[in-house]
């Protein structure tokens, strides 16, 4: 702490230069306490999340919704979004394709997401989901990893799913052996245009810009939505305004909003207690901003007096 030799540093000035480690310690306490003693504050629904929910609700039964799992092993923002949208799509009677451009998200996370949603559906007794998930490959299929992000997505639009890009699904079953079809058209004949909605759960690059450049820009498939990580939410509003995407699910909060919209609390695996921890940390940062500025004003006033 900057100690001014001749003038005793007033308590106000100390506010301007608190040591980082106190901030880290208080942040840690702010985050841990609500996890142990949750308060469960209510959440408002933002229009961007409602847009995605309503889009799926208005799709005719049997339409194909694709979930592009473009995130890694950090399961705090995109994974809850993917879980709740996957559960809602099955509950709404849609056919769901899981795939992705990030190897961990597309192959490993998609596998245990299916199991976790099956357990959730059995636990909470949502029959539409349990029946939809009865046989693998009937109402949902996990195609796994798109090898070359740019080329692969381009081929999905130009050449099609089968045989080059997805000869087998994520578990090694040959695609032609799976019963997955859309009103009679088998998955082996699918092109990007056959998908009614693709939600890209993007943690970074490769992400929505690949689908924008190779699907939206070429006019092959223009129904895109995004499950966004907090940092890039602000940057996606221009895409939504330009009509490139129909909606944005913003960070963990979006997943919890989607839970409430779909009437399936817990589908995203996030508890309201986690949101209380978020609230406390947000509040602490606002307090920090105030303290910092009070300290700065005090220092500038002392400098003006001296």
């Amino acid at each position, binding site marked *: 702490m900057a100690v001014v030799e001749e003038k005793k540093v007033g308590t106000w000035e100390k506010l*301007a230069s*608190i040591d*980082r480690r106190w*901030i*880290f310690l208080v*942040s*840690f306490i702010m*985050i841990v306490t609500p996890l142990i003693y949750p308060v469960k*504050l*209510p*959440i*408002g629904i*933002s*229009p*961007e999340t409602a847009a995605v929910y309503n889009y799926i609700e208005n799709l005719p039964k049997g339409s194909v919704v694709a979930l592009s799992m473009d995130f*890694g*092993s*950090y399961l705090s923002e995109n994974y809850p979004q993917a879980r709740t949208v996957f559960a809602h799509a099955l509950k709404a009677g849609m056919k769901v394709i899981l795939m992705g451009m990030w190897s961990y998200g597309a192959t*490993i996370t998609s*596998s*245990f997401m299916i*199991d976790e949603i099956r357990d959730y559906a059995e636990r909470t007794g949502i029959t539409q989901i349990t029946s939809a998930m009865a046989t693998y490959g009937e109402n949902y299929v996990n195609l796994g990893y798109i*090898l*070359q992000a*740019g*080329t692969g997505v*381009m*081929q999905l639009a*130009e*050449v099609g799913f089968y045989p080059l890009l997805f000869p087998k699904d*994520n*578990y090694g079953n040959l695609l032609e052996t799976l019963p997955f079809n859309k009103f009679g058209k088998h998955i082996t004949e699918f092109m990007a245009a056959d998908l009614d909605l693709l939600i890209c759960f993007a943690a970074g690059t490769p992400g929505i810009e690949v689908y924008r450049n190779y699907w939206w820009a070429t006019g092959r498939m223009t129904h895109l939505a995004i499950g966004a990580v907090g940092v890039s*939410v*602000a*940057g996606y*509003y*221009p895409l*939504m*305004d330009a009509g490139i995407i129909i909606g944005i699910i*913003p*960070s963990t*909060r979006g997943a919890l909003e989607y839970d409430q919209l779909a009437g399936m609390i817990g589908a995203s695996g996030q508890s309201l207690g986690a*949101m*209380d921890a*978020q*609230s*406390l*940390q*947000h*509040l*602490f*940062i*606002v307090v*920090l*901003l105030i*303290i*910092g*500025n009070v300290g*700065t*004003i005090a220092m500038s006033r002392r400098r003006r007096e001296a």
Partner: protein
Amino acid sequence: MAKLIAMDLKKTVPVTLAFIMGIFGAFAYFYYTKPTADVLANAIVFDGVMGSMAMGISLINISLIHGRNVQRKRKGWFFSLLLLAVMYFGLIIGLGAMKPFIEETGTKVQYYGLFDWGTESIGYFLVNAITNPASTTVFSLLAFYIASAAYRSFRVRGIDSAILLISGSLVLLGQAPIGSVIFGPGIGTLRTWILSVPNMAGSRGCQIGIAIGAIAMSIRVLFGYERKPTLGGMG
């Protein structure tokens, strides 16, 4: 003409190759002919295969740097030795982790080894005890650094920093449920308005600027004015 005659592999070929591939790539996107479209699709896969051949550089480079640390017993050589040991151990384990590890608990965690040495369990430990938690935790350090960065840099010194502070705090309060508890639901709609109007306009202006800058940089590199990236001009 003299320049063309003195063409040698070091300088001119890289720049020319970049130019040819650039013009071809752009042409194939604007003027459709079956051969060029097919050649482009193959050229992209060609680039993918050639690019992924370079994966070994990471192993060699790290072995060189940390190997020399150990050899010369530089400060912290112990950690370099540990790094090299775990690296080669992880490579051998990874090559042999063919089968998915957890069958019975249903979560078929699939590992992809080239061979079947039965090292899935050690592979599971390496991924779930070291790499995943470490990467998530180092990522989560950001939550603490964001608090200290906000505290340190959002100080009102003029209009600019005031705008930064106000827009940041409003969006921040609008996002967390506690914001609407204190200031009522209005803050949520205010946050959505800030994000979809002023924020959107500012972000749009930057994106247009970036598109223009990217095109200018592409022209400079393709036409060989900017030689450093293709190292065409270097000695």
